[in-house]
């Protein structure tokens, strides 16, 4: 599956951190999205990066933009991790690695957990990919400024009244 800018990201169907079935398009709800594939709660790099993202949610909450995290953690584990972070965005749970295979995002060097390879996508409301960040190396992940820049670019493209 090609996951490059301009391509349509598949409409993931996974349970959220409460166990409720969700669709990515429904979560987008007509807004730009930051979609983060995360190794899992145990990884110090994920903990560090998601703390940054949780800080950024204070801007997202007033900016009509969304954050969605996907990992192999079970829903109840995600719920606890999310609560510890103080996050108010959705986590999607894929312990069966159902989408991991289809998206070809397996991190092959972690044979213990077989997690998602840390990868971030910024998406238009219709799930068209704007940018991709390979976060296998920590510095490959989007900084908060990268995400602000992408959300600004997407919002400018999709909000008719962005520049009155």
């Amino acid at each position, binding site marked *: 599956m090609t996951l490059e800018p301009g391509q349509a990201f598949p409409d993931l169907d996974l349970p959220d*951190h*409460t*166990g*409720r079935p*969700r669709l990515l398009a*429904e*979560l987008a*709800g*007509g*807004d730009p999205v930051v979609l983060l594939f995360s190794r899992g709660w145990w990884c110090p790099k994920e903990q560090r990066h998601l703390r940054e993202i949780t800080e950024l*949610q204070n801007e*997202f*909450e*007033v*900016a*009509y*933009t*969304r*954050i*969605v995290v996907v990992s192999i953690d079970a829903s109840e584990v995600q*719920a606890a991790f999310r*609560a510890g972070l*103080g*996050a*108010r*965005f*959705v986590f999607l749970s894929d312990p069966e690695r159902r989408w991991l295979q289809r998206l070809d995002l397996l991190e092959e060097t972690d044979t213990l957990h077989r997690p998602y390879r840390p990868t971030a996508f910024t998406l238009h409301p219709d799930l068209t990919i704007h940018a991709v960040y390979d976060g296998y190396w920590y510095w490959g992940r989007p900084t908060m400024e990268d995400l602000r820049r992408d959300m600004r670019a997407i919002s400018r493209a999709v*909000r008719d009244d962005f520049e009155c």
Partner: protein
Amino acid sequence: MGKIPKGSSRLSYDGRELRAGAGSGRCFMVDARCLRGTAVQSAYAHVCALPDDAAVLEFDHPEVQQVRRDALAWWIGLLGDALICLTTLALDEARYGGAITVTREPAPWSEDPFARIFPGTVVRSDLFCEVAPPAGPVIERRAGVAWPGGRF
């Protein structure tokens, strides 16, 4: 209350009963999705609002922002599968009159963050439909529609 924004529906509350539309009691605007579709019968609606017209705050009031954050952070998760829907109660494009959380079974209402603003009353209702809970982290309203309704 004249013309209401697209994505809103009217709901009236007299302190004991809820009615769709502008009936007796105080009239609010709710997320229209909550009243559109197949209603769950004998649901439990925790109405955190008062019939008194003086019970009003602005949506931009810090505490009205904070209860929406709390709903996203833990209230929705606490309710789990019991949750049918939730909506704030708008009086107009700027003013908040309360909120309703609707469940299939009695819930820990004493924890309801919206009850910190206006006290809650449990009302049995056949009006409300199942709506996927808001994804967050957005707490802002859209063109005057009662949070979490509407979309651009």
